[in-house]
Every structure is written in C-alpha cells, then in structure tokens.
C-alpha cells in the first residue's frame, strides 16, 4: 500500500513538474502606472488563466524614460525581456540594433492586423515592415471647463480661430493681474505637433527623408501659440496643469485623451467638471488628429516558443473585449475597429467626460506623434526647447524652429556617421 502511494506521489510530482516545465514564460517590461498597471495586470491574469501553458509576467520598471534606459542597458548586456513597451523612436533604435522580431513575420499577422485601424498599422512601419504593434495610444483633444464656457456664453471651439477668440473671451483680468487664462498648454513636442497638424504641418520629415522642422506651416502653428501667450490669453509651461485646473486658473487645456484619469482627475471629480471636445480644426477645415503613445516590441533574443507565446498574448490584447476594457479603464483609445460599434462603448462614452466622437475621428485618420527613427529623441528634445524658447519669448518662432532644425540635422548627421 505504502509503495502504491509512493509511486502515485512520484507520478504526481513528475506530472506536475513536467506541466510546470512546459509553461512558456513571457517577460513583459512595462511602464504602466497606477490604474494602467492594475488594468493590465487584470487582463494578463485572465490571459494566463485561459492559457495554462503560458505565463506572462509583468515587470513594472518605472516611467517611460526609466524603461527606455533599462532597455538600452539590457540590449548592451543581452538581457532583454520577451516583450517591452517602448516609445516609437526607441522602437526604431532597437530595430536598428537588430534585436526586434517584426510582428508581420508571425503566421496570423494579417488577421490580427485586419481587426485594427489602418492608421494604427501604418504607425509601426519601419523600412516597409511592421515591427511593432502600438498599444497604449491616446489622441490629442481639447479639454474645457463647461461652467466657465457657459458663463461666457460660448460653445466649445470648433476651429483654431474659435480657439483664439474663446481664449480671449475666457481670460479674466483683475487689478491688472490675470487670474484666469483662456487656454493652457504644455510646451511639449506633442502639443506643437498637434497644433501644427491643424495648420497643415506637423510632419517633420519629407518623403525623401530630409528634415523640415522649420517649415512655414510649423512656424505658423508656433506663432499662433506664441501670440496667444504674448497677448495674455494663454498660459504655457512644461509642467502638468493639475493645479491650474483645481484653482480654476485656466479655462481650456490642450491635452491627450488619456490625461483624464491622471492629472485631470481632481477636476473631473468637481462640480464644475471638465469636458473633452475634438481638437479644433485648422485652415484646411479638416481634422488632423495626432496619436501619442507607446508600442509593443517582441525581442528576437527570446526563444521561438517565448516569441510565439508573446505574439499570442499581443493578439489577446487587441481583441475587442480586452480593448474596450482597457479603453474604459484607462481612457486610451480602443484600437480594435469593432469597439466603437459596441453598446457598452456608447454607454460608457455617455457617462464620462470622454467624448467618443473625438476618439473616433482620431482613430480613423490619426498619425503617430513620433517617427520611428533612432535619433528622434534628440529631435523631440530640440523641438521642445524651441517651443519653450518661443513661448518664453527668448526667440521668435522662426528663430526657434530654425535652431531646432539646425540642431536636429547635427544629431541626424552624427547618427548617420557624417
């Protein structure tokens, strides 16, 4: 009897260990903060439950920059994970280093791709191949305080001209001191690009691959922003605007869809709230939405089994159910085409400040805010500095962008080894 039990035990142990050994481990380095992290964890837990032979492990590395530096060091030391979440520019750099498996090399890529908006697929083209899949993408929108607009008797602006006029109407000056600015915006690369898109610019690289940061359209867009600041109708700074919103010292704010559950949450919970409207259209009278976000890469340093498992996981992430859950909990844009047709989506959109039309427009014809080029981080840096210099009036918009152009060309040349 004892022997039988012993044999049984050994058998069970053996079985268990074989079962354990068969589990493919997928390491996912991510920088999903707070609610993003818990949401992703919930999704991943479900995936692990549904796929007993795969174990996806989430490793929270810090914010995006910290993750990037980790990946850099890991790429040097050949200790890369299976999947990582990276900024597009970094994807380009990793591709150049030859450590990325293109997602279009997986068997059922085309069926996965057909579920997504073409704008999303186009975003991740590098040298004609699809290397990565965008995941957390959000669209530039305009936020406004509804009560302030009501008090001024205006509707949310629809065009850039309206935006300028409304900013003027919403500005409050008391005793020669501005107590409320009509518009707030962050002096970032993304904001300038979003505005420049409405002026027909916002694309910094020509089809031949040369840089045009100081194109007339871009200068026009920067001048538009700078004039608002000069006239005292807009307040610009690099930092987030959460305190300006809680103290009601700005009435409108250029932001991203995904800001809502984060920096803007304090105000979103207030009585006079915060609402979202599509980005005002520019001269062309057509919306030119801009995505900002990160993309998922699968590294070829992982074993083929791990890569296959990682691909399975990514496919799971873009299913409609996961996408709607992700979008509702994080306010990132749903990338799967079916999501906006679901009843649940419409119900959700009605019950929050989240404006579904703003998101739908973006999904249809948005582009990525960044090029997939290894030296793009310095371009982002240069353009940010140019915006800062222009907004703080140390340079004219033309000078500032000329400077950014010159600096970026230097960085490009350095990379290309000129």
């Amino acid at each position, binding site marked *: 009897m004892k022997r039988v039990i012993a044999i049984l035990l050994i058998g069970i142990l053996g079985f268990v260990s074989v079962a354990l050994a068969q589990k493919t481990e997928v390491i996912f380095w991510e920088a999903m903060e707070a609610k993003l992290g818990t949401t992703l964890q919930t999704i991943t837990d479900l995936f692990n439950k549904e796929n007993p032979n795969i174990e996806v492990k989430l490793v929270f590395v810090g914010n995006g920059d910290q993750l*990037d530096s980790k990946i850099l060091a890991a790429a040097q030391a050949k200790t890369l994970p299976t999947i990582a979440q990276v900024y597009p520019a970094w994807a380009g750099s990793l591709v150049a*280093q030859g450590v990325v498996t293109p997602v279009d090399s997986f068997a059922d890529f085309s069926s996965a791709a057909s579920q997504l908006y073409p704008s999303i697929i186009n975003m991740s083209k590098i040298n004609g191949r699809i290397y990565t899949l965008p995941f957390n993408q959000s669209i530039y929108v305009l936020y406004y305080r509804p009560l302030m607009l009501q008090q001024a008797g205006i509707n949310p602006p629809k065009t850039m001209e309206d935006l300028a006029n409304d900013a003027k109407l919403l500005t409050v000056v008391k005793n020669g001191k501005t107590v409320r600015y009509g518009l707030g915006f962050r002096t970032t690369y993304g904001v300038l690009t979003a505005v420049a898109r409405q002026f027909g610019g916002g694309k910094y690289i020509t089809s031949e691959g040369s840089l045009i940061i100081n194109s007339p359209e871009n200068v026009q867009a920067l001048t538009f922003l700078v004039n608002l600041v000069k006239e005292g109708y807009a307040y610009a*700074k690099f*930092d987030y605007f959460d305190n300006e919103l*809680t103290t009601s010292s700005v009435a409108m704010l250029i932001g991203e869809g995904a800001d809502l559950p984060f920096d803007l949450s304090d105000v979103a919970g207030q009585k006079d709230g915060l609402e979202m409207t599509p980005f005002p259209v520019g001269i062309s009278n057509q919306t030119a939405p801009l995505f900002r976000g990160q993309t998922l890469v699968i590294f070829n340093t992982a074993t083929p089994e791990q890569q296959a498992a990682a691909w399975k996981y990514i496919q799971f992430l873009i299913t409609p159910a996961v996408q709607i859950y992700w979008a509702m909990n994080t306010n990132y844009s749903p990338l799967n085409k079916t999501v906006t047709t679901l009843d649940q989506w419409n119900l959700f959109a009605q019950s929050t400040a989240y404006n579904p039309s703003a998101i739908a427009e973006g999904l249809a014809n948005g582009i990525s805010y960044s090029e997939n080029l290894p030296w793009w981080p*310095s371009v982002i840096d240069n353009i940010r500095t140019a915006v800062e210099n222009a907004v703080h009036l*140390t340079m004219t918009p033309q000078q500032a962008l000329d*400077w950014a152009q010159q600096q970026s060309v230097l960085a490009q040349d350095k990379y*290309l080894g000129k």
Partner: protein
Amino acid sequence: MHKRNKYIIGYLYLIPALVIFILFTYWPAIYSFYLSFFNTTTSTGHAIFVGLSNYVYLFKTGQLPYPFFTAFEYSFVRFIFAFVISITLFSWIEVKGKHLLKNMIPLILIPILAISLIYPSLSFWGGDIYIVLLWVLFGILTFYTVRKMDFLKSHTTLFLLSILGFYIVAYYIGNRNIDLYTLFFKIAQNNSFIMSIWNTFYFVIIDVPITIGISLAAGLLMKNLPFFKVFFRTAFFAPYVASIVAVSLLWLWLFNYHYGIFNFILSWFGISPINWLNSASLTMPTVAILSIWEYFGYYGLIFLSGLQNIDQEYYEAAEIEGANSFQKFMYITWPLLSPITFFVMVVSLINAFQVFTQVYVLYNQMPGPYANSGLTMVFYIYNTFYNEQQMGLASAAAYILLGIIMVLTLIQFRTTEKRVEYNI
C-alpha cells in the same frame, strides 16, 4: 626577506577594498575614457573610433552673432575702465588725500574711458590702434601706482571685487548686446553642453559659499549654546538623513505655486506668489535652496568637530586681554578653523558639481522648467547616456566634468596651502 613579508602583509590589508575600487571605479573609469573616443550611435550599430570629435562636438559653437574679437574689444575696454577706477579709488585711500596730483593721472583718463563706453560708436573708438594705446597707458599707470600701494597688496580680494563691481556698472551703461558674457550666453543657447557648464557653475557659486556660511554658523551655535545642544544638533542634521528623493518630493510640495507653504509665508509680507518651479531664472537658486537645506547640518557637524578641536586656552587668554566675541572669532576661531573650512570647501564643491537628483525629481525628470535652465553637467551626461544613447559623447562630457573638478580642487589646494594654519 623579513622586509618583503612586511610589505606583503601591507598589501594583503589593502586587497579587499582595492579589488572593489579597481573593479567598480578604476576599470569603469578607464572603460568610459576609452568609450569617449567612439561614436556609439551609428546606423550600423557598431561603435566607430572618432578620435577627439566627441570632445569637439561638445564645444561646437555654431554661428556666432558677431566675431569673438568684437566681444573681446568691448569687454576689454570695460575691464580697463573698471580697473582704472578701482586703482584710482585705492590710491585715494592709500594717500589719504596727500600727494594727490601724483595719483591723479587715472582720474584724467576716466572721463575719456567713460565716454568711449557710453558711445562705443564714436569715431575715435573704432580701430584697434586705440586698444594698443590704452594698453600702453594702462601699463605705465599700473607700474606707477601699484608699485607703492601696500594697502592694495593687502586687500587683493577687495580690489578684485571692486573691479568686478565697476565692470558690471560699465556693462549696464554700455551696449549690453556685445560683451564676452553676452556672447557666452548666445553660445550657450545653441550648445546645451556649454549651457550645462554655465548652470553647474551658477549652482556651485550660489550653493557652496552659502552652505559654508550657514553651516559655519550652525557649527558655532552648536558649540556655544549652553542648553538644548542635542535638540539643535538633531534638528540641523535631520535633513541630511532623508533620501534625496523624499527631500525633493517634499520641496516640490513646499515650492508649489498655488498651494505651497513658501508662497503662503511670503504672502504674510505682502509678496505676491513666486513661481519657483516654473521660472528659468529661479531654477538654479531653487535647487540651491534645497541643497543648502539638505547639507548644512552635515557640514555644520564637521565644523563643530573642528571647533571642539580648538584649544580652550586661546579663548581664555583672549578673554583676559578683553577681546569681544567678534574679535575672538576673527583672530582665533577663523584662522584655527581654516583646515576644516578648507576640507568642507573641497567636499562641498565636489558635491555641488554632482548636482542631479534634485533637478530630476523637482522638475519631473526634465532639465528645468524650460530653456534647459536646470541642465547641469551630470544631467547632460545622464541625458546623453539614457535618452540619446550616445555613450561616447556622454563619456567625453563626463571626463570634462572630471577635469573641471580636478582643476578646481587643485587650485584650492594651491591657493590655500600657504594660508591654512597648521599649528593646532
């Protein structure tokens, strides 16, 4: 044989720590130096030997708004102006009104120089010949006056400060657009590395003297207070034990424009809120306030230990002579404390040059609110390393930082060597 054994024992004692220094300090230092001659971000992904071009790239100035020589001319005239006025002033003090005529030569020159400053476009001030002329005049003058001036010799620092002061005056009354100082800024605007050098020096110049002043005061207080010594000691030292992340977080809250306690306290005095964290001109002072707060207690303790090392007999003797507190400080404490002061200066200078984490946490991981106003050298290195992946360039920058720290430390050693009192 015996001797060799003794040597070996000596080396054996060194081994554990030495291995660690070699592995984690010297070897990485050599490796980084090696890297500084390579371009690591290239399209092929392979590092290419580029010689000194990383170092050259760091100092690339781009298009200058006007030639360097023009800026030099303007600055030179301003310098002479400041120099002449200072000499005049000092000679006045020296002779106390007597033999005025002999020392009046500079006074005659002043109006000419002043006019040339205010109206730099005047015809007589256009060609380089005047510079040579001024050089000659200035040489004669210096020779005549300085030779006999004991007062000047004993107050060199004051004299240098006076020149600086009059230079600033000249700068403000003249054409401010053209000056070496202005040119430097124009260059810094185009070159973020030069900007980072400027910011770091700016930080060091604010941070180090104030830190030393406050920590010396703290040390003296801790020494002289009859009661509650332990309380004050703990209070002063408390900031130092907190991690810089927690501290920066705390000051982010104190400096908050809308809800911060600082702006609230300022409002008691009728001062309108200061946008501490969103102003380029306040970036370095803000970081300096934080650093001073964090470190003054630590240096204060070092001063305290130095003060305790001073023999009480000196003070007792001085008291018998009827010296007051100030005199005791000036003639006993300060000279006898000079080795400690020197030590604190060196350590705080090295520390100050490494400023990084404060900016990183205060400004949301950015180099200041805008215009790279918080870009310090370590931040530049960090940024080139991690955000731009340019390891070669970053290593080159790191070596320049290292060079600056070494040169300054050496200068400190040289200049203070003679003056530090070793007779404790």
